[in-house]
């Protein structure tokens, strides 16, 4: 555990020493260029929902339990919704807790989508929890998470 912290601190120190870019970025409230933390992922989710606490349920995320290649990890998200004009899932966001940036992608749906479902391939830097956060047309937010074990990291950092 302490070995991990030293590595991260060294990277951060290096980045700050190398120029004002990292400090400026930090000032903007963007994640530092070192890998993100679960706390930064939570901050991102809080900004996404405008402070509303997402409930559990309705949204699903499917990723392999073990990803042999972190550069390309198949990911499916879906939400339980009738997808009618009156009641549909508006968006699902995929959020990492250990990649360089928490936000991986967001899918925007309409009733014309027919299903709140999308499939994509993402990069996983290391073993981590991944969150899916969905918003429905009534404004309510939902959250779920899955854990991916990564044998070869895929973010190139």
């Amino acid at each position: 555990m302490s070995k991990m912290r030293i590595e991260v601190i060294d990277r951060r120190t290096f980045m700050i020493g190398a120029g004002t870019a990292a400090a400026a970025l930090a000032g903007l409230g963007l994640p530092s260029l070192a890998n993100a933390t679960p706390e930064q992922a939570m901050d991102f989710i809080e900004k996404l929902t405008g402070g509303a606490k997402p409930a559990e349920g309705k949204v699903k995320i499917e990723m392999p339990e073990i990803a042999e290649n972190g550069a390309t990890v198949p990911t499916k998200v879906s939400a339980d919704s009738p997808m009618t004009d009156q009641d549909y899932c508006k968006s699902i966001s995929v959020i990492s807790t250990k990649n360089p940036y928490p936000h991986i992608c967001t899918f925007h749906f309409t009733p014309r989508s027919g299903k709140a479902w999308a499939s994509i391939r993402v990069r996983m830097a290391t073993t981590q929890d991944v969150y899916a956060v969905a918003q429905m047309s009534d404004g309510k937010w939902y959250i779920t998470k899955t854990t991916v074990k990564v044998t070869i990291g895929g973010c190139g950092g």
Partner: protein
Amino acid sequence: MAKARVKVPKTAKAGDVITIKTLIKHKMESGNRKDKKTGKKIPRHIIDKFTAKYNGEVFFSSDWEGGVSANPYCAFTCKVDKSGDFEFVWHDEKGEEYKATAKITVG
């Protein structure tokens, strides 16, 4: 440089929810990689927005960041009600746009 491929069923019945698969050739350079020779970071260059239209109506879109894999694959669905055209647009941060189209006959 970037080539896009899409897989859309050629026919469907009115009311069907069809699955569309898309793939585009793109490095999705996240900005985190270093050039092994110079040690400098390779600048970020990613596709940041994907949009899908059916008969002129945007029915699905997606915002991407560096965490999306290279050569992005993206699949999603559409509820079709009449024959017509699909248009898919990938927009990258440098302002380039890549497009693909498909037709569908809905009986």
